[in-house]
């Protein structure tokens, strides 16, 4: 393989995995915007999405499309339940307490997944076969196209939701000024619940589409959350476009780093990016520094 096609291959792999980081970062942002909370359980939603999908299709033999929907619904319910049990009852919690709670939530979700599905690594059939395409000597799996396509659709739906529906605008209003939002009759607590449900659904979707190529096991959540968080910070916390672009960027850097340097450094790259951003420009590449000063992080 020529160097060119090799690099192209790394780029493609990077974009694929970067898409998932971008979706996790979007999940972080949705909750962060509505509540100011960094939900460290975000990665668990991805893991649960993949695990439920495997369980529904291989154990319960439910057809793929129905299993997709069911998995998203299950994880959405778990996200909503998590908010109701762990976040909703708190009165004026401090940021530190909220971090502890979402961390605890992630540990519980991980533990439950282990009890239920064991420690094995699961796989899932690709959505439409594994016959690759070739592009300038690089191979593209059909699943890659599925991942990109679904990401694209999800981003369009989210953009439409936040810009053109009353509910979406209400969520944005809540993010801008919760007190003023409550003064026009928006129930802030409902918006918080909705943000957790939406984030969980997004995470689940990412988990389902990535499992055929990346496999899934009970303890995958933490590393996905870390990389998604790095992407969210790099893109500027709360910034939707930033999240997607930064996710792709981290995915590409990681894939190039693994391919050209050593795959041992793969996971360190996201962390390195995170630290660099925090040192150099804490508001992220797309962030406005004023906005980041006003928020609690």
């Amino acid at each position, binding site marked *: 393989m020529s160097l060119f096609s090799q690099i192209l291959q790394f780029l493609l792999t990077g974009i694929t995995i970067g898409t998932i980081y971008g979706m996790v970062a979007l999940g972080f942002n949705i909750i962060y915007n509505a509540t100011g909370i960094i939900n460290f359980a975000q990665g668990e939603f991805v893991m649960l999405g993949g695990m439920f999908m495997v369980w529904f299709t291989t154990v319960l033999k439910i057809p793929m499309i129905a299993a997709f929907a069911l998995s998203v619904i299950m994880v959405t319910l778990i996200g909503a339940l998590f908010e109701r049990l762990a976040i909703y009852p708190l009165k004026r919690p401090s940021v530190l307490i909220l971090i502890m709670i979402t961390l605890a939530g992630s540990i519980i979700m991980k533990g439950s997944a282990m009890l239920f599905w064991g420690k094995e690594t699961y796989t899932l059939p690709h959505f439409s076969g594994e016959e690759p395409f070739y592009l300038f000597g690089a191979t593209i799996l059909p699943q890659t196209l599925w991942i990109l396509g679904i990401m694209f659709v999800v981003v369009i739906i989210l953009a439409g939701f936040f810009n053109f529906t009353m509910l979406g605008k209400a969520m944005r209003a809540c993010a801008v000024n919760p*007190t003023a939002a409550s003064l026009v009759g928006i129930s802030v607590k409902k918006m918080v619940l909705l943000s957790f449900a939406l984030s969980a659904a997004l995470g689940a979707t990412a988990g389902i589409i990535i499992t055929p190529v990346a496999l899934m096991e009970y303890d995958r959540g933490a590393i996905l959350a870390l990389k998604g968080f790095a992407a969210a910070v790099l893109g500027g916390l709360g910034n939707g476009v930033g999240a997607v672009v930064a996710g792709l960027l981290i995915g590409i850097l990681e894939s190039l780093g693994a391919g050209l340097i050593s795959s041992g450094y793969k996971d360190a790259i996201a962390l390195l990016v995170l630290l660099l951003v925090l040192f150099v420009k804490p508001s992220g590449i797309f962030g406005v520094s004023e906005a980041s000063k006003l928020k609690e992080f």
Partner: protein
Amino acid sequence: MLRLLNINTFYGEIHVLKNISLHIAEGEIVSLIGANGAGKTTLLNTISGIINARTGQIMYNNKDIARKSPDRVVKMGISQVPEGRQIFNPLTVLDNLKLGSYIRYRRDGSRKIQRDIEEMFTLFPILQERQNQLAGTLSGGEQQMLAIGRALMSRPRILLLDEPSMGLAPLVVTEIFKTVARLREMSKTTIFLVEQNARAALKLSDRGYVMETGKIMFEGNARDLLENREVQRAYLGKEKKPIWE
């Protein structure tokens, strides 16, 4: 219509509202005046449910709403124009107005909402010109109009206004006060107006309350308050003491 009975509100251990009782009848314009830090905003926020009173009752059409959440209070017909406007800066003027109708857009449908938005544009023509602009880019006066428009979009029975004149040029203040007076005539909205601009507020009002460090010090007809010596001295800037006193 609205009656507060012995309301006590605290921030932590700080006692801010001390046994406040007042009432507002249907169709009235009532103003509340008082110096900085008297507790006026706290009083409005207690009515709106943003802060809960520790003791006391807020009777609204014979129901105690003292522990209701802010969104419930809006749904019951009490809408607040908060201090410092607090419009949604990154959203357009039109979206701000639409969000004002949040509690009723499902029930009333977009046709009715559209008609009410037109009505707001008649009330504040500048908002129509600026409808697709981001709200944060409006001037202070325009933002105040938008904040009032947004609150009216819920079709409230009572409108609570927190210092609508704050930081605005005299001409704009006059315009806003005129609009407030027109509101009552047009839509029979009851108005509770918090102001530091005491004279203008009282001139517009039927009755008034004067608040000092969390207590109601004076109450009465707006005209009587305007003529009350002590009110004049403290709030209307009439320092001249007649010599024969």
